[in-house]
């Protein structure tokens, strides 16, 4: 294994800028790593080796001409397969889109290309990002590099596992209810869900439009910040995109200091239902922050108890409408009924019947019902009211604390099949991450250690809307303190990748 693999994006950027390595070398090292380990992990649905190397060559050529380049130019990246990539098959983990080659790039992909970041490939996910384990991918699950008998989280298990197993220094994820943060937690990596509107959704295959947000997946807080800076900023193609200057998140990490900061522990996001080792790891991290001068306060957000119920009405409702376009008429799978007349309606029904998996069908049915005449007020209407209450809870909590913290997920990575037949147990894994999506506020997960089962635990930092910088400050400090304590990075210390480095 090349030493370039496992090097942080920040360090790769420095080596590239100093011309100690070329982008082609870095990109090839990661493609080799994918070839070496991804047969077992299955983080990538497909790679784009030729295109990635061509992009790397262009960056190297530009650098050799002495052109000024963006900071991460030449650093390769993997992209979750629900983000469209021009000319590169994009499936959202579904049979219904198998073989679809998008004719356009998502805005974030345009930004990656403009930043000179070669795209290694597309990462696995639960079908249409519906799930917490990647077991719902139509193309088979991704395995957790910590224990290949366990799930890597979801829906963005592919991106998290790719970064955790050193196949990519960085990846793009999307987070609708925790799909960046929960995989980060269970794979010992860093995942960030920015403020809603902070990163353009144009080109993200929508699950629930009012909840979806694209964000960075990385191994360090600083790497996440650097990628966030590439992705963020106003996009006229997304009406919900924020039109505000993007602060320097990486500066917030470098200058991190929590002295005098008030850190709020959310009473409702802990305690019962949280694994013992998860709680212990969380308390340890909290202690480090207190030692660093932060004031720890307890806050209560009583409406969070209704978050999961509200989420599972709003998400399916929006998804049922967003997924209506997959009908075999314009793109993707097209199935004609095996007997009887071939009408448009029957082709649509046959295509959707064959193309969608069970979890997708389950949520489409739930959402269609929730929006039906006579049920709308009781379901969708009530859920929106809960959403308002959650926003108020956040607002009140942020009166008392600068950031809020909790364990990212109630448990460490569970075994394959453990929750597959119990959707409610699966849904409960997102209990701590969902409130931020409902409120549109930013959240991130970073590793806080390992549990008694030897598996990683995630620490979640939540900030008010538009204050993503604050969570980088807190996370930057905590990461430094934890690494001092561990004597290195969690993945390395625990020899997750065979200790080959």
């Amino acid at each position, binding site marked *: 294994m090349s030493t370039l693999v496992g090097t942080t994006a920040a360090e790769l950027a420095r080596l590239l800028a100093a011309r100690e390595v070329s982008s082609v070398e870095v990109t090839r090292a990661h493609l080799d790593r994918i070839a070496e380990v991804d047969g077992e992990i299955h983080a990538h649905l497909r790679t784009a080796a030729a295109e990635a190397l061509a992009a790397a060559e262009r960056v190297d050529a530009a650098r050799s001409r002495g052109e000024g380049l963006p900071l991460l130019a030449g650093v390769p990246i993997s992209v979750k397969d629900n983000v469209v990539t021009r000319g590169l098959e994009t499936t959202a983990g579904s049979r219904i889109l198998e073989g679809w080659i998008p004719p356009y790039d998502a805005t974030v992909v345009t930004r990656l290309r403009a930043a000179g970041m070669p795209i290694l490939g597309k990462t696995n996910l639960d079908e249409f990002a519906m799930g917490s384990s990647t077991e719902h991918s139509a193309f088979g699950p991704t395995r957790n590099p910590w224990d290949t008998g366990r799930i890597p989280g979801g829906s963005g298990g592919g991106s998290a596992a790719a970064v955790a197993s050193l196949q990519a220094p960085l990846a793009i994820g999307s987070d609708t209810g925790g799909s960046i943060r929960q995989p980060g937690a269970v794979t010992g990596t860093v995942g960030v869900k920015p403020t809603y509107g902070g990163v353009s959704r144009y080109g993200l295959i929508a699950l629930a439009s009012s909840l979806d947000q694209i964000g960075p997946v990385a191994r360090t807080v600083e790497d996440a910040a650097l990628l966030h800076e590439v992705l963020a900023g106003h996009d006229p193609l997304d009406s919900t995109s924020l039109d505000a200057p993007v602060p320097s998140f990486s500066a917030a990490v470098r200058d991190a200091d929590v002295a005098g900061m008030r850190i709020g522990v959310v009473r409702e996001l802990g305690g019962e239902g949280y694994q013992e080792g998860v709680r212990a790891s969380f308390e340890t991290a909290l202690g480090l922050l207190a030692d660093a001068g932060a004031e720890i306060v307890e806050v209560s957000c009583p409406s969070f108890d209704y978050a999961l119920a509200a989420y599972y009405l709003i998400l399916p409702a929006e998804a049922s*409408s967003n997924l209506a*376009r997959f009908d075999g008429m314009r793109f993707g799978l097209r199935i004609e009924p095996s007997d009887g007349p071939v009408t448009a309606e029957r082709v649509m029904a046959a295509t959707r019947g064959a193309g969608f998996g069970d979890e997708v069908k389950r949520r489409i049915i739930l959402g269609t019902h929730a929006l039906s005449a006579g049920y709308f007020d009781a379901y969708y209407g009530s859920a929106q009211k809960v959403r308002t209450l959650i926003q108020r809870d956040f607002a009140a909590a942020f009166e008392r604390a600068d950031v809020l913290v909790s364990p990212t997920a109630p448990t460490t990575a569970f075994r394959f099949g453990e929750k597959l037949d119990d959707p409610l147990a699966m849904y409960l894994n997102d209990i701590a991450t969902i409130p931020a999506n409902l409120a549109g506020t930013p959240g991130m997960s970073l590793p806080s250690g390992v549990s008694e089962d030897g598996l990683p635990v995630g620490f979640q930092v939540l900030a008010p809307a538009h204050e993503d910088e604050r969570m980088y400050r807190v996370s930057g400090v905590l990461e430094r303190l934890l690494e001092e304590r561990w004597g290195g990075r969690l993945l390395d210390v625990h020899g997750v990748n065979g200790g080959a480095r």
Partner: protein
Amino acid sequence: MNDVVDYEEAVAAFDPVLGIEVHVELGTRTKMFDGAPVAFGGEPNSRVTPVSLGLPGSLPKVNRAAVESAIRIGLALGCEIAESSRFARKNYFYPDMPKNFQTSQYDEPIARDGHLDVELADGTLFRVEIERAHMEEDAGKNTHVGGDAGRIHSAEYSLVDYNRAGVPLVEIVTRPITGAGARAPEVAAAYVQTLRDIFRVLDVSEARMERGNVRADVNVSLRPSPEAPLGTRTETKNVNSFRSIERAVQYEITRQAAVLLSGGTVVQETRHWHEETGETSPGRVKSDAEDYRYFPEPDLMPIVPDRAWIEELRARLPELPAARRRRLQAEWGFSDLEMRDAAGALDLIVETVAAGAAPAAARKWWTGELARVANSRGATLEELPVTPVQVAQLVALVDAGELTERLARQVLDGVLAGEGDPADVLATRGLRVVSDDGPLLAAIDDVIAANPDIVERIRAGRVQATGALVGSVMKATRGQADAGRVKELIASRLGV
């Protein structure tokens, strides 16, 4: 049971109630939610983007020019413009809908509570209450190939063209139109025509009915009396000419009356209009069971137009057709009857008057001789090869005594035949009013000599017989004489 009853019988037995939904395609440069160009026709699927094709990942973006047009339509209809309005998704599966939902406005339209005064043929004004005007996107167009004349059920396959998908529409919905009685068909047609005129004056759409720029869905129901609750309605879709709207309403009234008079009940349904037969036929059954699962469009922010902008748009509204007619009538001094007579040629008369003609003369030419010619040619007045300036020149020649009315019609024939301006025709055809008595007297003497019996009768006191001699003289002089002068000369010749 008869399919229909006599119209007089139907409106004697029932009170018709209308509801009209008019869709107007806005003439914006680009579509409602993306940058694809809006234009008529074009290679199929050439005017599309990932957004108008509903490709995975694409997102809508509101066209500000379309919002401006919608607000101006709302203001012209006396509506309140909402402080905040929102788009919603109307969910249903159909191949011409790229996303399988239409982005429309539902419970928060941009404009509501307006009215439109519609002038009927006899000059009475009929007020139509407007419930709302809202923005939405058009669908693509299906073409059914093979089988029976483009019908979907027998087609071998269907083609979809998404060029029209996403074209901005404003839908204007009336409140139930009551009190029209037997004039309901006329009210319906006049309402849509008045709206069409407003769209054109506002310059928000070409508003060409034949291109489907303006499309009307007409709801009709009958009730036994104006005091009775509303009856069950039918909705006749896509009636696209004023004449068809009138006929479709009339047909539905006679059809529903036949159903009700024979003891049946009207089915709430969508119906299709057939131009050739003048009948409607049932389409899909529309019931409350049809559920569009509306919910607010999460990909778009609410539209909160700046109040100052709205007031600026209000201040800049052009003079609307009704106000303009009132002003012109006052300026021209026309009677109500004359004004209605002039209605079809208003712009032409305005231009003719601007070129120097008296309003009465301008009206007389455009609604008389020229209307007759246009009618015989099957053309519109605008299509005739004569300009308002030429008509004004003609009027000036008559006023100057250089042409009689009759000669003027000949000159006009020449203009219409492409012989140039009236003065050119006058010169090349050698048409002149004969005012020199010399040649006239010679002609008169010839006529007197040739008609001794008529001369006898005139001398016996039957003065009106003079007309026959005048006619003969005019004929002999190819109409170039002044008939009044001829009459005087005959009288003096005969000493009567």
